[in-house]
Protein backbone atom coordinates (compact mmCIF):
# COMPACT_ATOMS: atom_id res chain seq x y z
CA UNK A 1 0.00 0.00 0.00
CA UNK A 2 1.10 3.54 -0.61
CA UNK A 3 2.94 4.52 2.59
CA UNK A 4 1.29 7.95 2.75
CA UNK A 5 -2.24 6.53 2.61
CA UNK A 6 -1.23 3.78 5.00
CA UNK A 7 0.22 6.47 7.26
CA UNK A 8 -2.99 8.49 7.27
CA UNK A 9 -5.04 5.41 8.09
CA UNK A 10 -2.57 4.47 10.82
CA UNK A 11 -2.69 8.01 12.25
CA UNK A 12 -6.48 7.98 12.46
CA UNK A 13 -6.35 4.52 13.98
CA UNK A 14 -3.76 5.55 16.58
CA UNK A 15 -5.79 8.60 17.58
CA UNK A 16 -9.17 6.84 17.64
CA UNK A 17 -7.95 3.82 19.59
CA UNK A 18 -6.08 6.16 21.95
CA UNK A 19 -2.80 4.29 21.75
CA UNK A 20 -1.32 5.09 25.19
CA UNK A 21 2.27 5.39 23.99
CA UNK A 22 1.43 7.75 21.14
CA UNK A 23 -0.80 9.83 23.42
CA UNK A 24 1.90 10.13 26.06
CA UNK A 25 4.46 11.12 23.40
CA UNK A 26 2.08 13.81 22.08
CA UNK A 27 1.34 14.99 25.63
CA UNK A 28 5.03 15.27 26.47
CA UNK A 29 5.62 17.15 23.22
CA UNK A 30 2.90 19.63 24.12
CA UNK A 31 4.12 19.95 27.68
CA UNK A 32 7.77 20.68 26.86
CA UNK A 33 6.97 23.04 23.99
CA UNK A 34 4.33 25.00 25.92
CA UNK A 35 6.63 25.25 28.93
CA UNK A 36 9.61 26.18 26.74
CA UNK A 37 7.64 28.85 24.88
CA UNK A 38 6.21 30.37 28.06
CA UNK A 39 9.62 30.38 29.68
CA UNK A 40 10.98 32.20 26.63
CA UNK A 41 8.12 34.73 26.82
CA UNK A 42 9.04 35.54 30.41
CA UNK A 43 12.18 37.30 29.24
CA UNK A 44 11.49 37.86 25.54
CA UNK A 45 8.41 40.06 25.84
CA UNK A 46 10.05 42.58 28.21
CA UNK A 47 13.02 42.65 25.80
CA UNK A 48 10.66 43.20 22.86
CA UNK A 49 8.89 46.05 24.71
CA UNK A 50 12.24 47.67 25.43
CA UNK A 51 13.39 47.25 21.83
CA UNK A 52 10.18 48.59 20.33
CA UNK A 53 9.31 51.38 22.70
CA UNK A 54 12.54 52.70 24.15
CA UNK A 55 15.40 54.28 22.33
CA UNK A 56 18.93 53.50 23.39
CA UNK A 57 22.34 53.04 21.83
CA UNK A 58 22.78 49.86 19.83
CA UNK A 59 19.05 49.19 19.59
CA UNK A 60 19.30 48.43 15.85
CA UNK A 61 22.24 46.12 16.38
CA UNK A 62 20.40 44.16 19.07
CA UNK A 63 17.32 43.94 16.84
CA UNK A 64 19.44 42.77 13.93
CA UNK A 65 21.11 40.20 16.14
CA UNK A 66 17.80 38.71 17.27
CA UNK A 67 16.61 38.68 13.67
CA UNK A 68 19.69 36.78 12.60
CA UNK A 69 19.46 34.33 15.49
CA UNK A 70 16.07 33.15 14.26
CA UNK A 71 17.99 31.07 11.76
CA UNK A 72 20.20 29.25 14.25
CA UNK A 73 20.31 25.54 13.38
CA UNK A 74 18.61 23.56 16.13
CA UNK A 75 21.35 20.94 16.11
CA UNK A 76 24.04 23.58 16.66
CA UNK A 77 22.12 25.12 19.54
CA UNK A 78 21.51 21.61 20.87
CA UNK A 79 25.23 20.96 20.76
CA UNK A 80 26.18 24.14 22.66
CA UNK A 81 23.60 23.45 25.34
CA UNK A 82 24.62 19.80 25.46
CA UNK A 83 28.16 20.86 26.30
CA UNK A 84 26.80 23.19 29.00
CA UNK A 85 24.46 20.66 30.61
CA UNK A 86 26.71 17.62 30.23
CA UNK A 87 27.93 16.04 33.47
CA UNK A 88 31.40 17.12 32.41
CA UNK A 89 30.15 20.64 31.55
CA UNK A 90 29.76 23.77 33.67
CA UNK A 91 26.12 23.01 34.60
CA UNK A 92 26.70 19.28 34.99
CA UNK A 93 26.03 19.46 38.71
CA UNK A 94 22.30 19.79 38.11
CA UNK A 95 22.16 16.55 36.08
CA UNK A 96 19.63 18.05 33.70
CA UNK A 97 20.83 16.37 30.52
CA UNK A 98 18.46 13.71 29.16
CA UNK A 99 15.49 15.01 31.16
CA UNK A 100 12.42 16.92 29.92
CA UNK A 101 13.78 19.99 31.73
CA UNK A 102 16.76 20.04 29.38
CA UNK A 103 14.45 20.12 26.36
CA UNK A 104 12.38 22.90 27.92
CA UNK A 105 15.50 24.99 28.54
CA UNK A 106 16.80 24.30 25.04
CA UNK A 107 13.53 25.14 23.33
CA UNK A 108 13.11 28.33 25.35
CA UNK A 109 16.53 29.50 24.17
CA UNK A 110 15.71 28.40 20.63
CA UNK A 111 12.47 30.40 20.38
CA UNK A 112 13.68 33.51 22.22
CA UNK A 113 14.78 35.28 19.00
CA UNK A 114 11.42 34.47 17.38
CA UNK A 115 9.37 35.96 20.21
CA UNK A 116 11.67 38.98 20.50
CA UNK A 117 11.77 39.76 16.78
CA UNK A 118 8.12 39.14 15.95
CA UNK A 119 6.81 40.84 19.09
CA UNK A 120 9.10 43.84 18.51
CA UNK A 121 7.73 44.08 14.98
CA UNK A 122 4.15 43.90 16.22
CA UNK A 123 4.74 46.54 18.90
CA UNK A 124 6.54 48.85 16.49
CA UNK A 125 3.70 48.67 14.02
CA UNK A 126 1.36 50.34 16.52
CA UNK A 127 0.77 53.90 15.36
CA UNK A 128 3.16 56.18 17.22
CA UNK A 129 0.38 58.78 17.48
CA UNK A 130 -1.30 56.50 20.00
CA UNK A 131 1.74 56.73 22.25
CA UNK A 132 1.87 60.47 21.90
CA UNK A 133 -1.83 60.65 22.68
CA UNK A 134 -1.45 58.49 25.77
CA UNK A 135 1.46 60.64 26.90
CA UNK A 136 -0.40 63.89 26.43
CA UNK A 137 -3.32 62.46 28.39
CA UNK A 138 -0.92 61.99 31.28
CA UNK A 139 -0.11 58.28 31.05
CA UNK A 140 3.01 57.04 32.79
CA UNK A 141 5.65 54.91 30.99
CA UNK A 142 4.09 51.68 32.20
CA UNK A 143 0.59 52.85 31.26
CA UNK A 144 1.80 53.79 27.79
CA UNK A 145 3.31 50.34 27.31
CA UNK A 146 0.04 48.78 28.37
CA UNK A 147 -1.80 50.79 25.75
CA UNK A 148 0.63 49.77 23.05
CA UNK A 149 0.66 46.11 24.09
CA UNK A 150 -3.12 46.08 24.03
CA UNK A 151 -3.12 47.47 20.49
CA UNK A 152 -0.52 44.96 19.40
CA UNK A 153 -2.06 42.11 21.39
CA UNK A 154 -2.76 39.77 18.48
CA UNK A 155 0.59 40.48 16.90
CA UNK A 156 2.26 39.41 20.13
CA UNK A 157 0.03 36.34 20.36
CA UNK A 158 1.02 35.37 16.83
CA UNK A 159 4.69 35.77 17.79
CA UNK A 160 4.12 33.38 20.67
CA UNK A 161 2.27 30.92 18.45
CA UNK A 162 5.07 31.04 15.88
CA UNK A 163 7.54 30.34 18.68
CA UNK A 164 5.47 27.43 19.94
CA UNK A 165 5.27 25.96 16.45
CA UNK A 166 9.03 26.18 16.07
CA UNK A 167 9.57 24.53 19.47
CA UNK A 168 6.96 21.87 18.80
CA UNK A 169 8.33 20.94 15.39
CA UNK A 170 12.07 21.12 16.06
CA UNK A 171 14.18 18.00 16.29
CA UNK A 172 17.78 18.93 17.05
CA UNK A 173 17.38 20.27 20.58
CA UNK A 174 14.98 17.54 21.67
CA UNK A 175 17.29 14.87 20.29
CA UNK A 176 20.55 16.21 21.68
CA UNK A 177 19.32 17.33 25.09
CA UNK A 178 16.53 14.82 25.61
CA UNK A 179 18.16 11.79 24.06
CA UNK A 180 14.85 10.38 22.76
CA UNK A 181 14.40 8.15 25.81
CA UNK A 182 11.22 6.12 25.71
CA UNK A 183 8.62 7.19 28.29
CA UNK A 184 10.83 10.03 29.47
CA UNK A 185 12.04 12.38 26.75
CA UNK A 186 10.56 10.95 23.56
CA UNK A 187 8.62 13.70 21.82
CA UNK A 188 6.82 13.60 18.49
CA UNK A 189 9.74 14.77 16.37
CA UNK A 190 12.29 12.41 17.93
CA UNK A 191 9.78 9.57 17.66
CA UNK A 192 9.33 10.37 13.95
CA UNK A 193 13.08 10.40 13.50
CA UNK A 194 13.45 7.06 15.30
CA UNK A 195 10.63 5.32 13.46
CA UNK A 196 12.07 6.55 10.16
CA UNK A 197 15.46 5.20 11.20
CA UNK A 198 13.76 1.94 12.13
CA UNK A 199 12.18 1.80 8.72
CA UNK A 200 8.64 2.06 10.17
CA UNK A 201 7.63 4.56 7.50
CA UNK A 202 3.87 4.31 8.01
CA UNK A 203 4.18 4.92 11.74
CA UNK A 204 6.47 7.92 11.06
CA UNK A 205 3.91 9.39 8.72
CA UNK A 206 1.15 8.74 11.24
CA UNK A 207 3.11 10.56 13.94
CA UNK A 208 3.84 13.44 11.59
CA UNK A 209 0.12 13.80 10.86
CA UNK A 210 -0.58 13.93 14.58
CA UNK A 211 2.05 16.68 14.91
CA UNK A 212 0.60 18.62 11.98
CA UNK A 213 -2.96 18.28 13.22
CA UNK A 214 -1.98 19.73 16.61
CA UNK A 215 -0.19 22.67 14.95
CA UNK A 216 -3.12 23.30 12.63
CA UNK A 217 -5.81 23.07 15.31
CA UNK A 218 -3.88 25.57 17.37
CA UNK A 219 -3.66 28.02 14.50
CA UNK A 220 -7.36 27.59 13.68
CA UNK A 221 -8.25 28.14 17.34
CA UNK A 222 -6.16 31.30 17.50
CA UNK A 223 -7.75 32.63 14.33
CA UNK A 224 -11.25 31.96 15.64
CA UNK A 225 -10.43 33.66 18.93
CA UNK A 226 -9.01 36.62 17.05
CA UNK A 227 -12.09 36.97 14.86
CA UNK A 228 -14.50 36.65 17.75
CA UNK A 229 -12.82 39.50 19.62
CA UNK A 230 -12.95 41.90 16.71
Amino acid sequence: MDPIIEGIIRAIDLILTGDPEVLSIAALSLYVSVAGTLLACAWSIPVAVALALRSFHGRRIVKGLFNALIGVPTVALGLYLYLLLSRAGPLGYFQLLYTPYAIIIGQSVLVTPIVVSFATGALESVDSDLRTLARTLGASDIQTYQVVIREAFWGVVLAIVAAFNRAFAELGVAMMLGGNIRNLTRVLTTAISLETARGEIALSIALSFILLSIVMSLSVAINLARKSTR
Partner: protein
Amino acid sequence: MTLILSRSALSKVQASIVIVVILVGAALAMYGYSVSNKPAKARLIVSTTTSLYETGFLDELKSKFELKYPNMNVSFISQGTGLAIQTAMRSDADMILVHDPASESQFLTGGYGVNRKILAYNFFVVVGPSEDPAGIKGKSPSDAFKAIRSAGLDGTAIWVSRGDNSGTYSKEKSLWKGIGLDVKDLRKEVWYLEAGSTMTATLKLANEKRAYTLTDIGTYLLNFNNHNIDLVELVEAGKSMLNVYSAIADNPKNANMTRANFEGSMQFIRYLVSDEGQQLFADFGTSKYGMPLFKPYVKLLQSQSDPTLIQWISDLAFFEGSECPQQFRYQAEDLYSIPPAVPVLVMSMLTEVEQRKAPAWIRSSKA
Protein backbone atom coordinates in the same frame (compact mmCIF):
# COMPACT_ATOMS: atom_id res chain seq x y z
CA MET B 1 -9.90 57.92 27.43
CA THR B 2 -6.47 56.90 28.56
CA LEU B 3 -7.94 55.59 31.74
CA ILE B 4 -10.43 53.44 29.88
CA LEU B 5 -7.78 52.26 27.42
CA SER B 6 -5.25 51.50 30.05
CA ARG B 7 -7.76 49.85 32.33
CA SER B 8 -8.92 47.44 29.68
CA ALA B 9 -5.33 47.00 28.52
CA LEU B 10 -4.37 46.20 32.05
CA SER B 11 -7.07 43.58 32.32
CA LYS B 12 -5.95 41.94 29.11
CA VAL B 13 -2.34 41.97 30.22
CA GLN B 14 -3.34 40.74 33.64
CA ALA B 15 -5.44 38.03 32.04
CA SER B 16 -2.47 36.94 29.93
CA ILE B 17 -0.26 36.87 33.01
CA VAL B 18 -2.81 34.82 34.90
CA ILE B 19 -3.07 32.36 31.98
CA VAL B 20 0.70 32.12 31.76
CA VAL B 21 1.02 31.51 35.48
CA ILE B 22 -1.71 28.87 35.37
CA LEU B 23 -0.12 27.11 32.39
CA VAL B 24 3.36 27.15 33.90
CA GLY B 25 1.96 26.00 37.22
CA ALA B 26 0.01 23.22 35.53
CA ALA B 27 3.07 22.17 33.53
CA LEU B 28 5.24 22.07 36.64
CA ALA B 29 2.55 20.26 38.61
CA MET B 30 2.22 17.71 35.80
CA TYR B 31 5.93 17.11 35.77
CA GLY B 32 6.17 17.06 39.54
CA TYR B 33 3.37 14.53 39.62
CA SER B 34 4.99 12.36 36.98
CA VAL B 35 8.28 12.47 38.90
CA SER B 36 6.69 11.78 42.28
CA ASN B 37 4.91 8.85 40.69
CA LYS B 38 8.17 7.07 40.09
CA PRO B 39 9.94 7.59 43.38
CA ALA B 40 13.30 6.26 44.52
CA LYS B 41 14.26 4.84 41.15
CA ALA B 42 17.94 4.69 40.39
CA ARG B 43 18.50 6.06 36.92
CA LEU B 44 20.81 4.20 34.58
CA ILE B 45 21.75 5.86 31.30
CA VAL B 46 23.09 3.53 28.63
CA SER B 47 24.49 4.98 25.44
CA THR B 48 24.21 2.42 22.73
CA THR B 49 24.65 1.61 19.10
CA THR B 50 21.74 2.20 16.75
CA SER B 51 21.59 -1.39 15.51
CA LEU B 52 20.69 -2.69 18.96
CA TYR B 53 18.13 0.03 19.52
CA GLU B 54 16.39 0.31 16.19
CA THR B 55 15.53 -3.37 16.11
CA GLY B 56 13.47 -2.81 19.26
CA PHE B 57 15.55 -5.28 21.28
CA LEU B 58 16.55 -2.81 23.97
CA ASP B 59 12.96 -1.76 24.69
CA GLU B 60 12.15 -5.37 25.41
CA LEU B 61 15.29 -5.78 27.48
CA LYS B 62 14.39 -2.70 29.50
CA SER B 63 10.91 -3.92 30.35
CA LYS B 64 12.18 -7.35 31.42
CA PHE B 65 15.02 -5.87 33.47
CA GLU B 66 12.82 -3.32 35.22
CA LEU B 67 10.28 -6.03 35.98
CA LYS B 68 12.97 -7.93 37.81
CA TYR B 69 14.57 -4.86 39.42
CA PRO B 70 11.68 -2.44 40.01
CA ASN B 71 13.95 0.13 41.64
CA MET B 72 15.89 0.63 38.38
CA ASN B 73 15.03 2.95 35.53
CA VAL B 74 17.05 2.32 32.38
CA SER B 75 17.33 5.02 29.70
CA PHE B 76 18.84 4.21 26.34
CA ILE B 77 20.50 6.91 24.25
CA SER B 78 20.71 5.48 20.75
CA GLN B 79 23.77 6.77 18.87
CA GLY B 80 26.41 5.39 16.59
CA THR B 81 29.18 3.54 18.41
CA GLY B 82 31.59 6.47 18.01
CA LEU B 83 29.20 9.00 19.52
CA ALA B 84 27.99 6.53 22.15
CA ILE B 85 31.55 6.21 23.40
CA GLN B 86 32.01 10.01 23.34
CA THR B 87 28.85 10.40 25.42
CA ALA B 88 30.17 7.97 28.02
CA MET B 89 33.60 9.65 28.02
CA ARG B 90 31.85 12.86 29.07
CA SER B 91 30.16 10.75 31.73
CA ASP B 92 26.74 11.55 30.29
CA ALA B 93 26.05 7.84 30.11
CA ASP B 94 26.71 5.35 32.89
CA MET B 95 27.72 2.55 30.55
CA ILE B 96 27.94 1.64 26.88
CA LEU B 97 26.63 -1.17 24.68
CA VAL B 98 28.64 -1.08 21.47
CA HIS B 99 30.21 -3.16 18.73
CA ASP B 100 33.63 -1.86 17.80
CA PRO B 101 36.48 -3.68 19.59
CA ALA B 102 39.07 -1.13 18.46
CA SER B 103 37.31 1.86 20.03
CA GLU B 104 36.30 -0.24 23.04
CA SER B 105 39.98 -0.91 23.63
CA GLN B 106 40.68 2.83 23.50
CA PHE B 107 37.83 3.45 25.93
CA LEU B 108 39.38 0.98 28.38
CA THR B 109 43.00 2.05 27.98
CA GLY B 110 42.01 5.73 28.21
CA GLY B 111 40.80 5.03 31.74
CA TYR B 112 37.13 5.59 30.91
CA GLY B 113 35.74 2.09 31.24
CA VAL B 114 35.95 -1.05 33.33
CA ASN B 115 34.49 -4.54 33.36
CA ARG B 116 33.95 -5.17 29.67
CA LYS B 117 31.76 -8.15 28.92
CA ILE B 118 31.07 -9.64 25.50
CA LEU B 119 27.32 -10.18 25.29
CA ALA B 120 26.33 -11.27 21.84
CA TYR B 121 27.42 -11.58 18.25
CA ASN B 122 26.10 -11.87 14.74
CA PHE B 123 27.53 -11.34 11.29
CA PHE B 124 27.77 -8.34 9.05
CA VAL B 125 26.54 -8.96 5.51
CA VAL B 126 27.31 -7.31 2.21
CA VAL B 127 24.03 -6.57 0.50
CA GLY B 128 23.45 -5.36 -3.01
CA PRO B 129 21.04 -5.39 -5.95
CA SER B 130 19.89 -8.84 -7.03
CA GLU B 131 21.43 -8.19 -10.47
CA ASP B 132 24.81 -8.24 -8.68
CA PRO B 133 26.79 -6.26 -11.31
CA ALA B 134 30.12 -7.00 -9.62
CA GLY B 135 29.36 -10.72 -9.39
CA ILE B 136 30.16 -11.10 -5.71
CA LYS B 137 27.54 -13.66 -4.76
CA GLY B 138 29.04 -16.55 -2.83
CA LYS B 139 32.53 -15.03 -2.85
CA SER B 140 34.67 -14.67 0.23
CA PRO B 141 34.52 -11.22 1.82
CA SER B 142 37.95 -10.19 0.55
CA ASP B 143 37.28 -11.38 -3.01
CA ALA B 144 33.92 -9.65 -2.93
CA PHE B 145 35.46 -6.34 -1.86
CA LYS B 146 38.07 -6.64 -4.61
CA ALA B 147 35.36 -7.35 -7.19
CA ILE B 148 33.25 -4.40 -6.02
CA ARG B 149 36.21 -2.03 -6.32
CA SER B 150 37.16 -3.16 -9.83
CA ALA B 151 33.51 -3.02 -10.96
CA GLY B 152 33.31 0.39 -9.31
CA LEU B 153 36.31 1.64 -11.23
CA ASP B 154 34.71 0.27 -14.43
CA GLY B 155 31.60 2.26 -13.60
CA THR B 156 29.31 -0.75 -13.21
CA ALA B 157 28.98 -0.84 -9.43
CA ILE B 158 28.46 1.66 -6.63
CA TRP B 159 29.36 1.26 -2.95
CA VAL B 160 27.58 3.16 -0.20
CA SER B 161 29.48 3.59 3.04
CA ARG B 162 28.08 4.67 6.40
CA GLY B 163 30.79 7.32 6.49
CA ASP B 164 30.30 8.05 10.18
CA ASN B 165 32.05 6.78 13.30
CA SER B 166 29.78 3.79 13.76
CA GLY B 167 30.96 0.28 14.50
CA THR B 168 29.75 -0.74 11.06
CA TYR B 169 31.95 1.90 9.43
CA SER B 170 34.85 0.75 11.54
CA LYS B 171 34.28 -2.80 10.27
CA GLU B 172 34.05 -1.58 6.69
CA LYS B 173 37.37 0.23 7.01
CA SER B 174 39.01 -2.92 8.34
CA LEU B 175 37.57 -4.98 5.47
CA TRP B 176 38.99 -2.58 2.85
CA LYS B 177 42.25 -2.54 4.76
CA GLY B 178 42.25 -6.35 4.54
CA ILE B 179 42.69 -6.07 0.78
CA GLY B 180 45.25 -3.30 1.07
CA LEU B 181 42.99 -0.32 0.49
CA ASP B 182 42.54 2.78 2.61
CA VAL B 183 39.12 4.39 2.89
CA LYS B 184 40.84 7.79 2.79
CA ASP B 185 41.82 7.05 -0.81
CA LEU B 186 38.60 5.25 -1.75
CA ARG B 187 36.42 8.19 -0.80
CA LYS B 188 38.06 10.21 -3.58
CA GLU B 189 36.77 7.71 -6.15
CA VAL B 190 33.39 8.34 -7.75
CA TRP B 191 31.88 4.89 -7.15
CA TYR B 192 32.38 5.25 -3.39
CA LEU B 193 29.54 7.18 -1.74
CA GLU B 194 29.25 8.17 1.90
CA ALA B 195 25.81 8.37 3.48
CA GLY B 196 26.95 9.87 6.79
CA SER B 197 23.77 8.59 8.38
CA THR B 198 22.09 5.72 10.20
CA MET B 199 22.14 2.16 8.92
CA THR B 200 18.55 2.34 7.71
CA ALA B 201 19.21 5.59 5.85
CA THR B 202 22.33 4.05 4.32
CA LEU B 203 20.41 0.96 3.22
CA LYS B 204 17.71 3.11 1.64
CA LEU B 205 20.33 5.15 -0.20
CA ALA B 206 22.00 1.97 -1.44
CA ASN B 207 18.60 0.68 -2.49
CA GLU B 208 17.87 3.81 -4.53
CA LYS B 209 21.30 3.77 -6.14
CA ARG B 210 21.24 -0.02 -6.72
CA ALA B 211 24.50 -0.08 -4.80
CA TYR B 212 26.34 -2.42 -2.48
CA THR B 213 26.77 -1.75 1.21
CA LEU B 214 27.86 -3.37 4.45
CA THR B 215 25.18 -3.81 7.10
CA ASP B 216 24.54 -5.59 10.36
CA ILE B 217 22.11 -8.43 9.80
CA GLY B 218 19.49 -7.09 12.24
CA THR B 219 18.95 -3.73 10.57
CA TYR B 220 18.99 -5.40 7.16
CA LEU B 221 16.30 -7.96 8.04
CA LEU B 222 14.18 -5.27 9.68
CA ASN B 223 14.15 -3.13 6.55
CA PHE B 224 13.87 -6.04 4.15
CA ASN B 225 10.83 -7.37 6.03
CA ASN B 226 9.26 -3.90 6.05
CA HIS B 227 9.68 -3.75 2.26
CA ASN B 228 11.78 -0.62 2.57
CA ILE B 229 14.52 -2.22 0.51
CA ASP B 230 14.85 -5.11 -1.90
CA LEU B 231 18.62 -5.49 -1.72
CA VAL B 232 19.70 -9.10 -1.21
CA GLU B 233 22.34 -10.71 1.00
CA LEU B 234 25.33 -11.54 -1.19
CA VAL B 235 28.25 -12.15 1.14
CA GLU B 236 27.68 -13.44 4.64
CA ALA B 237 29.45 -15.16 7.50
CA GLY B 238 33.18 -15.66 7.50
CA LYS B 239 35.50 -14.67 10.29
CA SER B 240 36.15 -11.17 9.00
CA MET B 241 32.41 -10.41 8.99
CA LEU B 242 31.89 -11.11 12.69
CA ASN B 243 30.04 -8.46 14.68
CA VAL B 244 30.59 -8.59 18.44
CA TYR B 245 28.53 -6.60 20.95
CA SER B 246 29.99 -5.73 24.35
CA ALA B 247 29.04 -3.81 27.46
CA ILE B 248 31.47 -1.60 29.38
CA ALA B 249 30.76 0.29 32.61
CA ASP B 250 32.08 3.80 33.26
CA ASN B 251 35.21 3.69 35.36
CA PRO B 252 34.23 4.86 38.88
CA LYS B 253 37.89 5.61 39.62
CA ASN B 254 38.00 8.21 36.84
CA ALA B 255 37.72 11.63 38.49
CA ASN B 256 35.35 12.88 35.78
CA MET B 257 33.01 9.95 36.17
CA THR B 258 32.18 10.09 39.85
CA ARG B 259 28.56 10.90 39.07
CA ALA B 260 28.15 7.78 36.97
CA ASN B 261 25.93 5.05 38.36
CA PHE B 262 28.48 2.24 38.69
CA GLU B 263 26.38 -0.11 40.83
CA GLY B 264 23.48 0.19 38.39
CA SER B 265 25.76 -0.47 35.41
CA MET B 266 27.15 -3.59 37.02
CA GLN B 267 23.68 -4.79 37.92
CA PHE B 268 22.65 -4.36 34.30
CA ILE B 269 25.76 -6.05 32.92
CA ARG B 270 25.28 -8.98 35.29
CA TYR B 271 21.71 -9.27 34.09
CA LEU B 272 22.82 -9.22 30.43
CA VAL B 273 25.21 -12.14 30.93
CA SER B 274 22.82 -14.07 33.20
CA ASP B 275 20.85 -17.02 31.85
CA GLU B 276 17.73 -14.86 31.69
CA GLY B 277 19.46 -12.01 29.87
CA GLN B 278 21.15 -14.35 27.41
CA GLN B 279 17.84 -16.07 26.72
CA LEU B 280 16.39 -12.68 25.75
CA PHE B 281 19.10 -12.37 23.10
CA ALA B 282 18.39 -15.92 21.93
CA ASP B 283 14.65 -15.34 21.62
CA PHE B 284 14.56 -11.87 20.07
CA GLY B 285 13.52 -11.97 16.46
CA THR B 286 13.30 -15.74 16.17
CA SER B 287 9.57 -15.77 15.49
CA LYS B 288 9.75 -12.91 12.98
CA TYR B 289 12.98 -13.62 11.16
CA GLY B 290 13.49 -17.34 11.81
CA MET B 291 16.73 -16.63 13.66
CA PRO B 292 17.86 -14.56 16.61
CA LEU B 293 19.06 -11.11 15.52
CA PHE B 294 21.73 -11.14 18.25
CA LYS B 295 23.16 -14.50 19.21
CA PRO B 296 24.05 -14.89 22.90
CA TYR B 297 27.79 -15.21 23.49
CA VAL B 298 27.78 -16.52 27.06
CA LYS B 299 25.38 -19.26 26.02
CA LEU B 300 27.74 -20.12 23.16
CA LEU B 301 30.59 -20.42 25.65
CA GLN B 302 28.51 -22.58 27.95
CA SER B 303 27.35 -24.92 25.25
CA GLN B 304 30.74 -25.10 23.53
CA SER B 305 28.80 -26.10 20.42
CA ASP B 306 31.06 -24.23 18.03
CA PRO B 307 34.73 -24.02 19.09
CA THR B 308 35.71 -22.41 15.77
CA LEU B 309 33.30 -19.55 16.31
CA ILE B 310 34.45 -19.09 19.90
CA GLN B 311 38.00 -18.90 18.61
CA TRP B 312 37.00 -16.34 15.96
CA ILE B 313 35.37 -14.15 18.58
CA SER B 314 38.45 -14.42 20.80
CA ASP B 315 40.70 -13.47 17.88
CA LEU B 316 38.56 -10.51 16.87
CA ALA B 317 37.27 -9.05 20.12
CA PHE B 318 39.70 -10.08 22.87
CA PHE B 319 42.39 -7.72 24.12
CA GLU B 320 45.60 -9.30 25.33
CA GLY B 321 43.86 -12.66 25.25
CA SER B 322 40.91 -11.72 27.44
CA GLU B 323 37.54 -10.09 26.94
CA CYS B 324 38.63 -7.73 29.70
CA PRO B 325 42.27 -7.78 30.80
CA GLN B 326 42.92 -7.83 34.55
CA GLN B 327 43.88 -4.17 34.85
CA PHE B 328 40.49 -3.07 33.47
CA ARG B 329 38.45 -5.02 36.01
CA TYR B 330 37.03 -3.42 39.09
CA GLN B 331 35.16 -5.22 41.85
CA ALA B 332 33.85 -7.80 39.44
CA GLU B 333 36.26 -10.75 39.38
CA ASP B 334 33.32 -13.15 39.56
CA LEU B 335 32.13 -11.96 36.15
CA TYR B 336 35.16 -13.54 34.56
CA SER B 337 35.13 -16.92 36.27
CA ILE B 338 33.77 -20.00 34.55
CA PRO B 339 30.09 -19.48 33.80
CA PRO B 340 27.83 -21.50 36.11
CA ALA B 341 25.32 -24.15 35.10
CA VAL B 342 27.66 -25.77 32.62
CA PRO B 343 26.66 -29.27 31.56
CA VAL B 344 29.17 -31.81 32.85
CA LEU B 345 29.75 -33.14 29.35
CA VAL B 346 31.37 -29.97 28.10
CA MET B 347 33.35 -29.21 31.24
CA SER B 348 36.47 -30.76 29.79
CA MET B 349 36.23 -28.56 26.69
CA LEU B 350 35.75 -25.51 28.86
CA THR B 351 38.85 -26.20 30.89
CA GLU B 352 40.68 -26.39 27.59
CA VAL B 353 39.46 -22.92 26.70
CA GLU B 354 40.41 -21.63 30.12
CA GLN B 355 43.87 -23.10 29.76
CA ARG B 356 44.27 -21.38 26.44
CA LYS B 357 43.22 -18.10 28.00
CA ALA B 358 45.23 -18.44 31.17
CA PRO B 359 48.72 -17.62 29.91
CA ALA B 360 47.39 -14.48 28.28
CA TRP B 361 45.83 -13.30 31.53
CA ILE B 362 49.09 -13.78 33.32
CA ARG B 363 50.90 -11.94 30.59
CA SER B 364 48.49 -9.02 30.75
CA SER B 365 48.59 -8.71 34.52
CA LYS B 366 52.37 -8.68 34.46
CA ALA B 367 52.43 -6.00 31.80
